[in-house]
Structures are given as C-alpha cells and as structure tokens.
C-alpha cells in the first residue's frame, strides 16, 4: 500500500500531517517523541471544528486528533464520509459546575445554565443535566437529543448556548447559575477540579464511550504502517506526562480497543 506522503527510500522519517484544534506544548512533545519513532509529524491547528475533517477527506492531512466519536459520527453521517478512528487518546471530565450552589438541587427555578452550542456537546450537556436531576430527556431521542427532546423541565431552566470554548467564561457570570463544561476548560487560576463538580460525567461508564477522543483517518488509509508508530508515540511516557500536565489531570487517558471505537461509531451513525 502507498505510504502516506511516501516513505523516503533511505528509510528515514515518515512525514505525517495531523489536523488539530489548538496549538500546545503537548503537540511539541508528540513531534519530539514521534521523531524517535521514525515519524516527521506536523500539526495544523484549526479553530473551526469542521475543517480538520474536511481537510482529512480531501487528503490535505493524514489524520486528525481533536474529536470524540460522537462528533465524528455526526460528521460522517451528515457528509457521507468515512473518517475512521485509529486509536483512543483521552476523555475529558465534563461536569456541572456552579459558583453559587453546592448541589444541583439548590439550582433555583428559572435559573440560566450555560451549555455548549454545538450539537454533539449540547446533547452531552443534556445528559449531564439529566444526571443532575435538573431535567429529563426523551429516552427515545438516542445519543443526540436536541432541545425539543426535553420532556421535563420542572424548574424552567433556561439553557444558554455558548460557543464550546466560551462556556467556562459564564461560570462567574452573575446571570448564570451553573455551567456544563469540561473541567480542563477552566482557567487554572480558578483552581476548579473535578471535585468541585455538582455532577460529574462517569468517564468509565459505557455511556461515555462516545466521548472518547480519537485519532482518526480516512477509511482507505487505516492500514498505513505509520499508525502503530503514532499510537506508540501517544502512549509514550513523556507524551502522557505532557498531556496530564496540560490537562491538569482533568482528562483521563483511555486505551479503548479500536474495534470497539469503530463499532460505537457505527452505532452512533445509525442514530
């Protein structure tokens, strides 16, 4: 099979172009370790959460490493694409956080709760709010419930939809009682950890499988000999340390079997 980017005759580094969504020291570490494993990795960072996939489909990059399976399934379904997971990386700890309240029960009637506005993560937030007992979602709505699928909202909670990366800014907003967000999204200066969550998503539960972030490529490229090297790179001690440092321990490294990732994806794509 054709090697991605073509292997150098002399058997030197395999060039690998990966799309991601935010530059970080963690990426530098991957590049550094990848070199030892025989990979010449370049990251291109998009702020748009859609283009890393289209760039992949169009062959402009070899892989991407920014999305969870739920998001990926939506993308594949809507665009008829076949982006396929290669291996799992992490899962973020999402939870319900409030500056004003110690428990979900004390969130008052008519309160405003900030949630992400993209469909996959909005649904995810609904589940967390359901776990918190704030509202109920139609069980038939599947993994991607929308606002209309809320069957019960006894406290008349108003959901304030914000861009994914802005949700944390609402934590301190006086007009918002709580936020649903990834713990590692907070400003470290606030010192917020998973322990502060009123409700925390269970990262190890089967229901969280859709939220595992994966490295993915095109279906016709899953057999590339670079992938084992890349996975090795991600599992390398130094990379793991860098990642944990960056996520302040608020992301769990997961090694989820690739077959299961793919079957989860297949299931979600039926939704």
């Amino acid at each position, binding site marked *: 099979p054709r090697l991605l980017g073509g292997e150098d005759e002399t058997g030197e580094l395999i060039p690998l172009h990966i799309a991601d969504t935010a530059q970080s020291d963690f990426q530098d570490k991957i590049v550094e370790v990848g070199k030892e494993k025989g990979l010449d990795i370049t990251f291109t960072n998009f702020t748009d959460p859609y283009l890393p996939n289209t760039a992949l489909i169009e062959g402009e990059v070899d892989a991407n490493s920014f999305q969870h399976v739920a998001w990926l399934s939506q993308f594949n379904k809507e665009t008829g694409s076949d982006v396929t997971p290669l291996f799992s990386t992490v899962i973020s700890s999402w939870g319900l956080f409030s500056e004003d309240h110690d428990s979900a029960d004390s969130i008052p009637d008519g309160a405003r709760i900030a949630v992400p506005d993209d469909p996959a993560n909005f649904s995810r937030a609904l589940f967390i709010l359901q776990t918190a007992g704030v509202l109920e979602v139609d069980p038939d709505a599947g993994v991607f419930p929308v606002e209309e699928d809320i069957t019960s909202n006894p406290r008349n909670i108003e959901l304030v939809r914000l861009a994914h990366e802005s949700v944390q800014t*609402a934590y301190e*907003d006086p007009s918002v009682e709580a936020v649903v967000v990834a713990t590692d999204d907070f400003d470290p200066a606030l010192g917020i950890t998973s322990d502060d969550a009123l409700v925390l998503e269970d990262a190890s539960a089967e229901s969280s499988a859709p939220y595992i972030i994966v490295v993915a490529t095109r279906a016709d490229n899953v057999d590339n000999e670079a992938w084992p090297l890349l996975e090795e790179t991600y599992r390398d001690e130094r990379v793991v340390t860098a990642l944990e440092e960056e996520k302040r321990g608020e992301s769990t490294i997961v090694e989820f079997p690739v077959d299961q990732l793919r079957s989860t994806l297949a299931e979600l794509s039926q939704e």
Partner: protein
Amino acid sequence: MSDLFSASTVDRVGVALWETLFMVSVSFFFASIIGLVLGLFLFATRSGQILANRAVHVGLNLVVNTLRPIPFIILLIALTPVTRNLLGTSIGPAAAILPLTIAASVGIARVAESNLVAVDPGAIEAARAVGAKPLHILFGFVGREALGPLILSLTFIFVALIDATAVAGAVGGGGLGNLALTYGYQRFDYAIMLLIIVVLIALVQSVQFLGNWIARRFIQ
C-alpha cells in the same frame, strides 16, 4: 415559508435578526458619536490644523492604535469582567455591545480622519475668519463639509458591525451570523445557513442603499 424551513427555524431566524439589529444599532449609535469625535480630534490635532497639538495627537493615535490591533474576539473576551460589572452579565446580546462599540469607535475614528483631511483648507480658514470657536469649526464646519463622505464611512462601519456580531455570538450574543455558524454550518443545515445569508444580504443592501441615498444629498 415553504417546507424547507420549519416554523421554529423561521422563529429562530427572526430572533437572531432582532438580536443582530439590537447589537448593531445600539453599538453603532454610541460608536458614531465616540468615533466621530475621536476622528475629528485626530484630524484637528494634526500639525497645522486648528487644534494642532502634538502631544494630544500622538496620545489619541496611541489609544486608537492600541485598541485596533486587539483581535475583536480577544477584546470581546477581555472585556467580559467590565461588561459583567456594568450590566450584571457578560453573556447575551447586551454584553456584546461594549466591545462592539469600542471596536467600531476606533474604526470610525480612522475612516472619518481620512475623510476629514480632504476638507478644503479654505473652508476652515473662512470659519476661523468669522470667529468660530475651534470646536464649532470642527463640528460645524469641518464635519459639515465632509458630511457626504462621512455618511458613506458610517455606512461602511455599520455593515462591518454586522460582520462583527457573528463573532459576538461566541459570548452568547446570538445574532444572524452566529446562527448561521452554529445552526446552519455546524449542523450541516445549509438551507438555514443560506436563508440567513440571504437575510443578511438583504439587510446590508438596505443599509447601504439608505446610506448612499442620504450621502447623495450631502455630496457636493
């Protein structure tokens, strides 16, 4: 509406249109005042001008040049504490107004300046000769002589504000641009995205038409 759009979709677009209009009009209102005043002073403090003052000119330039390079999205976020103190919230359309106003003000200041330097020095000299005060010369003569171009410039900024509100969506400002982005684009709902863009184009067409129409009466 046709089958293409559900009633709720149309509702959503209506609300977003309203949010856009709200953010843009309020911030445009304040920015016009602040921006024109800034622009007039930027002009008047130039060397050889009626209020020539190197220190003030350099100072104003510095303020404008310090605010302009801050990417709007960062300005938006950097201002959240201020907005929060001011309005009690930093999310929603109202919260976008302060950053929009600041960005538009410095924008207007610069574009206005480019219109003001074209004013015939003879008109200014005549105003001095009739004993008008510097501020009166500035607002009543310099500004008045450049009114046609200034109206075109204000129209330009008005439209630029519509664009900026799309970014303001990031802090929950809502608005058409944000709706197109989140609802249309992220949900792969190209129909609604196109609908929104058509609404935006219609809006901008009307604004520009109005701007041109008013300006025509003042273009000499």
